[in-house]
């Protein structure tokens, strides 16, 4: 075999849409890269995210989540998908020792409902089934830097995911080849200090960024944020997570790689 020889996979077609205040980027190659079926799948993907946004947006006064947060709805009155997200949030809170939570201190002694740390990865992962239905087509879809990828044909190359350098967003600090799986990164390079340690209510420090890969974006995204808000013990905690590989970039730009482990209990 000759290293470096890849089968020509044809051109990559790209789409960008803006939704939930984020750019959503798609790369497609293979059979439906440039067909009506491929474009329909992209439209269906976006339409599903729009519906999720209507239910979960904390920026919309009339969303189910806003009404639940204000106590105008009980959990029993919410759609099943809301309960699913709250369950994920509870599991993440337990597994992170309370550092990650969808209930954050509101600064007045109470808490506010902020499920976006769970919703994003979960929503992208769910919506990606519209892309997964495309036969013989490779796709990689990123929502503001968190992505799900799939390569359908064994002869086509991996998707190569660059990990942004947290101290210099014009550079990449690592590359992750992905065939089928998810990559999520948490950091504050673009939004300022917006990741909160739920135990203290204060912005997390001690880590520049955390990137997690795994089979599902739902948990890759949760784990990236949950590790980030734990600061100095991020890498230690990630080693306890089955089935994920991770990259921690520290504030001095040194890195720690956590090798993926097989799921425990298998």
């Amino acid at each position, binding site marked *: *075999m*000759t*290293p*470096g*020889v*890849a089968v020509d996979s044809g*051109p*990559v077609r*790209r789409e*960008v849409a*803006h939704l939930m205040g*984020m*750019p959503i980027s798609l*790369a497609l190659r293979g059979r439906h890269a440039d067909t009506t079926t491929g474009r329909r799948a992209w439209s269906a993907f976006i339409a599903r995210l729009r519906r999720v946004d209507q239910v979960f947006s904390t920026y919309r006064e009339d969303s189910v989540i806003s009404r639940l947060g204000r106590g105008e709805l009980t959990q029993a009155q919410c759609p099943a998908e809301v309960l699913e997200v709250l369950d994920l949030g509870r599991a993440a809170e337990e597994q992170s020792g309370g550092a990650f939570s969808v209930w954050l201190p509101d600064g007045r002694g109470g808490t506010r409902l902020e499920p976006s740390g769970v919703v994003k990865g979960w929503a992208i992962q769910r919506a990606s089934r519209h892309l997964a239905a495309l036969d013989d087509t490779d796709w*990689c879809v*990123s929502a*503001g*830097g*968190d992505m799900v990828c799939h390569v359908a044909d*064994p002869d086509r*190359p991996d998707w*190569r*995911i*660059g*990990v*942004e350098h*947290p101290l210099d*967003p*014009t*550079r*990449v*600090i*690592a*590359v*992750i*080849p*992905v*065939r*089928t799986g998810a990559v999520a*990164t948490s*950091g504050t390079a*673009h*939004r300022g200090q917006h990741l909160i340690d739920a135990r203290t209510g204060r912005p997390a420090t001690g880590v520049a960024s955390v*990137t997690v*890969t*795994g*089979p599902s974006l739902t948990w890759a995204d949760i784990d990236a944020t949950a590790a980030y808000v734990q600061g100095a013990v991020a890498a230690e905690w990630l080693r306890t997570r089955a*089935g994920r*590989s*991770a990259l921690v970039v520290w504030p001095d*730009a*040194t*890195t720690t*790689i956590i*090798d*993926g*482990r*097989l*799921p425990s209990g*298998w």
Partner: protein
Amino acid sequence: MGDLIMKKIVLWFATTVSIVVLLFGYRTSTNATNASAATSAQRPYVGTATAGGTAGSGTAGSSTGKSGTAGSSTGKSGTAGSGTGNAVTAPASPSTSTAANGSTAATSASSPASASTTTTYTGRVASTRWGDVQVAITVTDGKISAVSVPVYPSGNGEDQQINAVALPILVQETVSNQSANIDMVSGATVTSNGYLTSLQSALDQAGL
């Protein structure tokens, strides 16, 4: 029932990868002094693998390694693929292009500027009762830079998940984005306002 089978495959798989990694670590460490001794010393490992129902080791061929560090995993670069069960990706049918890709990636990631030697060793396909399995390792400058499974059992949807469990991460601290050859960018959440100045935006516009 399905879980039990998958459990066996996973355990078996981890064992095989470990064996191949061990085998290779041994191979390179002895190679410097006596190649033929290394070859014969290698046989017991092959035998072990076979006894375990695997036979996943291949003929190592000519070794280009220069040190005995293969198999350990601590550094910042080029460590993908070593360690336990850190499997790379793998298509559902026989293919060699995955391994070829892995070695390319390893070469460019570890030292883009200097010449390095990369060789991929592919074990022969082993039949197990769960299906055919093949393991390949890529060695760059004497270190294992990737472990891949070009052939693995494809019976149900869970295989793909297992396959995606662990991905290699190649840290490149000196690479510029021009030479990174990447498809997408993962980073702290980019907002629509910041998008136009982001790397992802450059990729989207380049249409590569």
